[in-house]
């Protein structure tokens, strides 16, 4: 096959612009261009597992849609397994598995088992292989008791595990997951992550995981691709991302009233103020306790919380560099 040994996913200077029409007057309409993806390039080898991260609206879903072939690029070059996903969608569809976190591929009124039966027929999966794959997913994702439950009665986490199974019954070479952990409970999240790790390690399935939750990536991917406003911000090992953004934690301080930025606290600096609320960054390695007690002693403190850096913070710091 064309892709053996080479890059399995090859994205070069990919762009996607949407035309959004807006009513600006009674009869007047203006067309506006939205650059959802603005010239990104990256490659993924067969068997790699990478995190594709960025804040809301960064262009992650749009990129995934182009990779699956349900959206045409406006520019650039895109190859998956050596072929153009959009032009050769029917050929590629059997080699791709997709999970969209906010959508379901399952049938609402049908028990999981029946949905899987339909998927088997759609993808023409031989009976034996279907049963083997199903048994595996059922065991690892703990779906045993849920197979006869109609999808509409499943919790979000259960449904997501059901969806992941549906995406894997035809043994795809690559699995795209668009925000698979969004809104999941802690247990389901952990189970999904563990499953993906096993899938990638044991089956060698290439996995591209989209998320805005940094903790997903931390537990799963060595490689991360960060985008913002459709542009590539970072592509490299997770450790490198730590250097950029994971060095600091944030203390969110609510004061009784609006005050000038807090100064003179050793080891902390005010990075943002908004009315009576202030954000103080301090080294992740330092303890928050002495900071908190000094703040409490010297300022009219109402409330206070500590935030681990999220993707928005990381990106903000990338721009600041």
């Amino acid at each position, binding site marked *: 096959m064309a892709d053996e040994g080479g890059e399995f996913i090859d994205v070069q200077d990919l762009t996607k612009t949407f035309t959004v029409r807006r009513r600006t007057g009674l009869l007047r309409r203006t067309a506006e261009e939205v650059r959802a993806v603005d010239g990104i390039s990256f490659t993924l080898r067969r068997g790699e597992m990478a995190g594709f991260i960025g804040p809301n609206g960064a262009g992650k879903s749009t990129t995934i*849609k182009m990779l699956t072939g349900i959206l045409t690029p406006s520019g650039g070059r895109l190859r998956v397994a050596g072929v153009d996903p959009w032009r050769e969608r029917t050929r590629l569809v*059997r080699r791709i598995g*997709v999970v969209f976190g906010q*959508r*379901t591929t399952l049938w609402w*009124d*049908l028990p999981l088992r029946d949905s899987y*039966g339909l998927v088997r027929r759609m993808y023409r999966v031989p009976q034996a292989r279907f049963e083997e794959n199903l048994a595996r997913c059922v065991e690892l994702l703990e779906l045993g008791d849920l197979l006869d439950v109609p999808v509409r009665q499943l919790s979000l986490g259960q449904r997501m595990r059901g969806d992941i199974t549906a995406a894997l019954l035809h043994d795809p070479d690559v699995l795209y997951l668009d925000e698979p952990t969004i809104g999941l409970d802690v247990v389901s999240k952990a189970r999904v992550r563990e499953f993906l790790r096993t899938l990638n390690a044991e089956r060698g399935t290439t996995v591209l995981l989209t998320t805005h939750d940094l903790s997903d990536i931390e537990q799963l991917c060595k490689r991360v691709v960060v985008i913002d406003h459709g542009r590539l911000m970072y592509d490299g090992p997770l450790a490198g991302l730590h250097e950029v953004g994971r060095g600091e934690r944030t203390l969110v301080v609510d004061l009784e009233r609006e005050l000038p930025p807090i100064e003179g606290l050793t080891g902390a600096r005010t990075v943002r103020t908004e009315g009576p609320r202030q954000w103080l960054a301090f080294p992740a390695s330092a303890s928050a306790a002495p900071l908190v007690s000094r703040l409490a002693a010297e300022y009219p403190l109402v409330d206070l919380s500590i935030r681990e850096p999220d993707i928005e913070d990381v990106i903000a710091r990338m721009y600041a560099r």
Partner: protein
Amino acid sequence: MHLLRLNFAVAVSGFRRYATYRVATAAGVFTNTVFGFILAYTFIALWHERPHLGGYDQSQALTFVWIGQAMLASVAVMGGGFQDEFSERIRNGDVAIDLYRPVDLQLWWLAADLGRAAFQLLGRGVVPLAVGALAFDLALPASPGSWLLFLLAVLLALVVSFALRYLVALCGFWLLDATGLNALSTLLSLFFSGMLLPLTVFPGAFGETARLLPWSATLQVPADVLLGAQPGGAAAGLAFQTGWALVLLAAGRALQTVATRKVVVQGG
């Protein structure tokens, strides 16, 4: 062979999905039966005043009423069935997932809707017809051949009805709000199928036209096939239905191609 098996499986799942809603089915049977009685007494009054209206005697007219009630849900005269679900998937963008699957969208929904229709023909059709036959003197044929032709006409009616609703649903790709279009299509279907009054009672050019429109293939023609009242015989009726089925399915396919292009370029 593969395609046949897939679509059969889809139809079976469509059947089963509706079979799980037992309360809704019972409520539907009740409604159809009540509605049947109301129409039946209206028709008795009407045919008393104007015997042989539309070429039917009174018992043929009553048969028309109860056949209509038996087919109402199945043929989705008032819209619904796959249409609600498909429209919703177009509206919320889930249709992108459907397009991604290695199956033909139109065939898929056709199979699913035929499965639903098969359930509703049994679940919501048999009881009202039986009640009607017990309560009134109906002109039901005795020969199995007539019933077989009728079933064939019902199948074609289902396909025509599907094809019409598929076109309406596809318009959702361009309309922000499809409520108006849905109301219009329900109204057209309710009237021009013959559900309210057999189309044969309308004289002149209006009647001629009404009987040529596709909606008449969804109820008027199957009823006439069963009553043996189809001008030109049952074969002419089936040919008329087949013609509309092919034309409308082809139109749906063409519109689907345009809609797909919109989705893959504009993202829905």
